[in-house]
């Protein structure tokens, strides 16, 4: 009975339907499930990216029609011997026929002729409507198919086809130039920078009415398009069997005849092969556009993605552009799956297609194993060649023939990083994928070498006709890759771009100016020794010796093995890499040292980074463990010790100066340590009494410590505050070897009492505020800091470049005087974030990339709307994130001017988003930070490889109202004076017998500059905003509080005022008096006070 009633209930159709309920059957629901912000964002991008063809390319269709009719009407001429025809033509039309090198011999026996093209067709992204607005230029490809009658059977050999082609295109060019002389500019160009394929490019002339210059400029900018006339071969001109990658078809240009007959010419062959595929691919793409509605959009997405990474069809851009992308997706939609099925379904959406294509690129190693679409009959061996292979068996073409091994691996790197990103639930996916321009050399590569040499002749003599520079690079790539081995993740060559040239001139000579970018493997690059095979393996050993030459030596190692090895004399990763590069290029390619410039080396010299730093940090941590043991071994302490944790930046590999054990300076660097006792009920239930009890504890520990170890000296230090609810004192403990610690005690009851006081509504507001402030401080010092220290230290050991990057970034903040407002721990989080979410790149592998990407992140981060979430423990859920986001929104709603809460920075152990940013930066400082980072990134982008790193660290003093020049002499003497016992021995009359040299310096509470500025900040809280860098920095800058305007006098004004002359009750800030007060307070510590000129 019951079951039937249930069924009836379910069967109820057409009943009341709530609009909010989800119906799993409907299409809408499916969308809800699949949809994410990313999809919505890409939809928006697609809408924005498409140009308005009517507007942007107005009148292009007319031009194309006209062009076609002109070309069709060119009258044919009979065959003539090539040399005769060339001379006649060049004389008549003043056009230098762009024959590819080497030029045809004078006595070449074959004849050239002209016949009207069998087809004239527009192909490419103009037809498929897949152009995007941000292209540098809209290119419209028009192919002119040469009739088969022009060619002979053997034309595939010895460049004969290309000579005929060059003649053909020049012949057309002559005629077109005549017709379009008025409104089009004609020039030659190599198709995709392939030296074998000259084409004619038509660009509209800027209308030269001379009416309004600005208008013409605007117009020229708007209609920047070009029409490319591309001659191509008829279908099936040459059988594929003749032009497989293995065959040798060209012997021209090779000096050694014998060698020329043997070596295969894959590039030459593929170029020849590609000539007949324009029309078939056009057919394929048009067909798919009908089959798969999302296909054009997927092409647009791919085009954007490639363009943001600097990829394009041209050889210098990697040889993987829009066409290759489209063809790849098209082939995947048709073949590529199991059992001859399609790999992708045509019903996928554009985003899904895009993701699938990226996945394909990231998982297929194209260089190692040739990839063939479909399980075709073509065996892998027939299509194998040195470079990457993606073979289309139907059209019998290697799609990637223009790619080089390095561009293939770079493409794969980018694809991997993007697939990682798309799989990362936490990261923002859209911006790194499509918006951010990722091809800035310094943000991508750890080091860049520039090779400049005019002598490339020896590389131009191969028959494969890739061009001398490419040949050189292929050679260099082979050697450098072998040399670096596992030290480098990626070696990349940037070829010079080749532009267009005018019809009447021969093309410019190639210059050898190549950039080599290297991405390190940070785990291996610092290795100073290159290990080879053991001596017993003679063959291998001989190879090793052959490669390294004199540098290779045989050594016996501790474990008894005898290995071939090479030792490098440099210490830092970058310098080792430089040394290796110089040596390898010299040995194998005879490129001398002065032809290779290292770019980016200047970064590590900005602060003195050294390979010894890590061990200095390590030994500091080691020393801390000794200290911990000493404390734990103290007997009969009234309470049990739960934990000791260090909280200083030098205990987490993050201080600018590495910790030096011993007395190297006049002062002592102490490591802050928190001591946690087991929970106990013996503490007094009063905050002030707890503080006093803590002092008693410190004194007790002090007594026991000194009893246990006589060589320890201890000092009880006072915090800068009165007796109250906050911590009063700390114990400085100094070991004989110079290791020094500052011990503070944590009491768990204190935390609870404070919390209760904050919540207790019956108390006075002032008391509660005070308690809240104390609570926040306590939480920071005893809860957040130890965890933070632990986290950063762990990550520093996991990512080797993190430590030095943090130090360099801190120096950057110091240079821009932001350190006083932005906690160093917050800076560490910024850097860590750049390492944890490095998209669109891979994780930074050196200091340079780390620094620049951190700055890049800071320039992009919109802290007004976005919370920074550094998920150090990888345990924040989606809900945690969205709740943080909502929290930020409520802050903004409540306080739109951001007077109180400015940045929201959360980590796994602090989800309030405030712990790191409660005491600043203020809105003013935060926007200054963003501005500075933006300026730095702009500089990096604009200067490219010509960047002078010290510019990034230059302080801009002109932006401040007041500059206090501190006297370093006075400050040093304070440090010296306070480092000895007061009233102690007098200064010796001999300078070199100073008291200091004889005794150990005493610890001081803080650096004198910091003490002084701290006081000033307290006194002028509402008047001045101080900006300081490191303690040794000689200049402290300040801004007047911009909110202090003229106002009516009242007794509660918080700043030093004087009455405005002739204006009754009005008062304003008495700036001079304030500065005089500071000058009096500073005394000899201030050398000069400089006031910026006021504009008014």
């Amino acid at each position, binding site marked *: 009975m019951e079951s039937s009633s249930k069924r009836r209930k379910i069967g109820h159709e057409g009943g009341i339907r709530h609009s*909010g309920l*989800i119906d799993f059957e409907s299409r809408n629901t499916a969308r809800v499930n699949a*949809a994410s*912000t990313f999809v*919505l*964002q890409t939809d*928006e*991008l697609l809408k*924005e*990216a498409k140009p308005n063809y009517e507007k942007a390319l107005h009148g292009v269709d007319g031009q194309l029609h006209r062009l076609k009719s002109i070309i069709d009407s060119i009258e044919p001429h009979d065959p003539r011997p090539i040399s005769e025809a060339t001379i006649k033509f060049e004389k008549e039309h003043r056009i230098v026929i762009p024959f590819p090198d080497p030029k045809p011999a004078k006595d070449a026996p074959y004849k050239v002729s002209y016949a009207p093209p069998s087809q004239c067709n527009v192909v490419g992204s103009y037809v498929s409507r897949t152009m995007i*607005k*941000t292209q540098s230029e809209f290119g419209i490809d028009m192919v002119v198919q040469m009739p088969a009658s022009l060619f002979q059977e053997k034309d595939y050999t010895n460049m004969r086809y290309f000579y005929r082609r060059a003649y053909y295109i020049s012949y057309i060019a002559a005629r077109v130039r005549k017709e379009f002389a008025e409104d089009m500019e004609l020039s030659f160009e190599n198709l995709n920078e392939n030296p074998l394929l000259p084409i004619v490019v038509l660009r509209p002339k800027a209308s030269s009415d001379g009416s309004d210059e600005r208008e013409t400029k605007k117009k020229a900018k708007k209609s920047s398009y070009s029409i490319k006339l591309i001659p191509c071969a008829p279908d099936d001109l040459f059988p594929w069997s003749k032009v497989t990658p293995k065959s040798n078809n060209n012997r021209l240009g090779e000096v050694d005849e014998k060698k020329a007959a043997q070596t295969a010419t894959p590039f030459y062959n593929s170029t020849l092969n590609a000539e007949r595929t324009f029309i078939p691919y056009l057919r394929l793409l048009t067909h798919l556009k009908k089959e798969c509605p999302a296909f054009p959009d997927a092409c647009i997405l791919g085009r954007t993605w490639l363009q*943001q990474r600097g990829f394009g069809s041209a050889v210098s851009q990697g040889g993987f552009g829009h066409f290759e992308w489209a063809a790849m997706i098209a082939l995947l939609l048709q073949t590529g799956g199991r059992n001859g099925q399609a790999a992708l379904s045509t019903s996928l959406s554009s985003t899904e297609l895009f993701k699938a294509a990226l996945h394909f690129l990231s998982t297929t190693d194209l260089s190692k194993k040739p990839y063939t679409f479909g399980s075709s009959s073509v065996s892998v061996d027939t299509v194998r060649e040195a470079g990457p292979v993606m073979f289309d068996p139907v059209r019998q073409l290697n799609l990637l023939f223009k790619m080089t091994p390095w561009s293939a691996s770079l493409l794969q790197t980018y694809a991997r990083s993007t697939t990682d990103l798309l799989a990362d639930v936490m990261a923002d996916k859209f911006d790194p994928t499509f*918006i*951010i*321009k990722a091809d800035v050399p310094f943000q991508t590569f750890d080091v860049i070498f520039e090779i400049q040499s005019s002598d490339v002749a020896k590389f131009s003599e191969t028959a494969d006709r890739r061009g001398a520079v490419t040949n050189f690079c292929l050679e260099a790539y082979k050697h450098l890759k072998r040399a670096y081995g596992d030290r480098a993740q990626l070696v990349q060559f940037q070829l010079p771009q080749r532009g267009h040239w005018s019809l009447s001139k021969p093309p410019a000579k190639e210059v050898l100016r190549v950039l080599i970018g290297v991405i390190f493997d940070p785990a291996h690059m610092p290795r100073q020794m290159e290990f080879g095979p053991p001596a017993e393996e003679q063959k291998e050993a001989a190879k090793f010796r052959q490669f390294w030459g004199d540098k290779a030596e045989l050594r016996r190692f501790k474990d008894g093995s005898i290995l071939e090895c090479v030792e490098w004399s440099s210490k830092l990763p970058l310098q080792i890499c430089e040394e290796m590069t110089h040596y390898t290029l010299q040995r194998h390619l005879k490129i001398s040292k002065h032809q290779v410039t290292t770019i980016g080396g200047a970064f590590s010299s900005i602060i003195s980074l050294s390979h010894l730093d890590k061990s200095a940090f390590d030994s500091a941590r080691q020393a801390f463990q000794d200290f911990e043991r000493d404390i734990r071994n103290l007997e009969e302490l009234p309470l049990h010790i739960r934990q000791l944790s260090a909280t200083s930046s030098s205990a987490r590999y993050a201080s600018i100066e590495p910790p030096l054990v011993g007395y190297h300076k006049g002062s002592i660097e102490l490591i802050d340590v928190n001591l946690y006792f087991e929970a106990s009920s013996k503490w*007094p*239930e*009063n905050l*002030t*009494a707890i503080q*006093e009890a803590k002092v008693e504890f410190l*004194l007790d520990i002090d007594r026991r410590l000194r009893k246990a170890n006589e060589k320890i000296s201890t000092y*009880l*230090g*006072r915090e800068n505050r009165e*007796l109250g609810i906050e911590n009063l*004192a700390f114990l400085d403990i100094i070991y004989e070897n110079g290791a020094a610690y500052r011990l503070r005690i944590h009491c768990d*009851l204190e935390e609870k*009492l404070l919390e209760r006081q904050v919540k207790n509504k019956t108390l006075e507001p002032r008391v509660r505020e005070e308690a809240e402030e104390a609570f926040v401080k306590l939480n920071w010092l005893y809860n957040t800091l130890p965890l933070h220290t632990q986290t950063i230290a762990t990550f520093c050991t996991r990512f080797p470049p993190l430590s030095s990057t943090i130090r360099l970034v801190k120096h950057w903040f110091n240079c821009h005087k932001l350190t006083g407002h932005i906690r160093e721990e917050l800076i560490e989080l910024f850097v860590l974030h750049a390492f944890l979410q490095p998209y669109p790149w891979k994780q930074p592998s050196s200091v340079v990339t780390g620094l620049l990407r951190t700055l890049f992140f800071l320039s992009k981060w919109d802290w007004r709307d976005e919370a920074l979430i550094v998920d150090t423990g990888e345990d924040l859920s989606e809900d945690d994130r969205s709740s943080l986001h909502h929290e930020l929104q409520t802050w903004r709603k409540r306080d739109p001017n951001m007077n109180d809460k400015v940045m929201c920075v959360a980590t796994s152990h602090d989800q309030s988003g405030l712990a790191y940013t409660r005491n600043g930066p203020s809105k003013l400082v935060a926007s200054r930070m963003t501005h500075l980072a933006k300026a730095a990134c702009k500089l990096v982008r604009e200067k490219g490889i010509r960047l002078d790193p010290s510019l990034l660290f230059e302080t801009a003093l002109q932006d401040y109202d007041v500059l206090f020049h501190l006297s370093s002499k006075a*400050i040093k003497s*304070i440090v010296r004076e306070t480092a000895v016992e007061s009233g102690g021995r007098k200064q010796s009359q001999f300078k070199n017998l100073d008291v200091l040299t004889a005794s150990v310096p005493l*610890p001081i509470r803080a650096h*004198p500059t910091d*003490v002084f500025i701290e006081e000033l900040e*307290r*006194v002028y*809280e*509402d*008047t001045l905003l101080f900006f300081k860098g490191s303690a040794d920095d000689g200049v402290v800058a300040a801004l007047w509080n911009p909110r202090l305007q003229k106002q009516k*006098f009242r*007794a509660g*004004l*918080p700043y*030093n*005022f*004087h009455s405005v002359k002739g204006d009754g009750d009005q008062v304003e800030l*008495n700036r*001079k*008096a*304030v*500065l*005089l007060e500071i000058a*009096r*307070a*500073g*005394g000899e*510590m*201030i050398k*000069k006070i400089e006031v910026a000129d006021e504009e008014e």
Partner: protein
Amino acid sequence: MVPVDAAGDQFAILPIQMPPVPSFHETALHEVRIRRNAPKIPTANDSRSLFLKNIPADSTEPHFRAVFTALVGAGRFETITFEGEDKAAVAIDPARAVKAAALARKRKRSDVEEEEKAEEEAAQLPEIWTRRLYRSSSTAIVLLADEKSVQLVLKAITKLQKTKKYPVWGQHLSGDVPLLGAPWVSSHLRLSRANKAEIQKATHAFFNVFNRKEKEAAEISKRLRNEPDEDGFVTVTRGGKGTPANQFEAEEARRKMIEKAAKKKSEMKDFYRFQLRERRKQEQAELLKRFEEDKKKVNAMREKRGKFKPET
């Protein structure tokens, strides 16, 4: 300038000439506002004291003594109290003492009180600054010899407007003023390195006071437990007949209770079918909500121009 009305709430302006300093070669007039002292809670000395606003940050008693001497001659200035100095010493009462003391006020004998005060003073830690900087534009109260001096001072200030012979800051200082600048900072740093014996003594003194007060508080609350007040009610105070409950233990017990409740709740999850259904429904609603949120986010991005434009 406005004519100064010495009487009433009106502030008079006392300009002080600030001499140049080697690091800043300019002079300035610092304006101290001055009026008769009229605090909300009147005290005995109000009639012969002046209220000062906007005093220089580096003020000391000798500084002001010199200024007033320049105005009205020697012998009229008695003393000056700066803002924050008169604040009572921090209450070092144990938690319970405060409450108990509020309930039962008991007059102590004055000599006992005196003794206790001395003890409390001993509990204070030694000073770590040789001289304090006051917050910018802070206040002070000057105590003069008699009411007539107040009149004289105010008159002298009015006269200053005409003669323009302003007193100069830091001139004719009688008595030693601790230096600012480098000696000031270095002495502070030295004083911050405390003398262990002194501190030890201070903490001992502190706990003497503290323990005494705690004992007193305990006594008071014990007494209150037994004594009905005038209406016949007995005040309920913490701590039963046995040992008084410790705050710490109470908290521990509470935590345990909450934990237990949470555990019980989690065990009952997904027990009934309707719970499961409800949870699913909730999840779906959340999904829908998230979708809406995404849409909103993208719309917001669209409003900010350039978000969808790839960088070039």
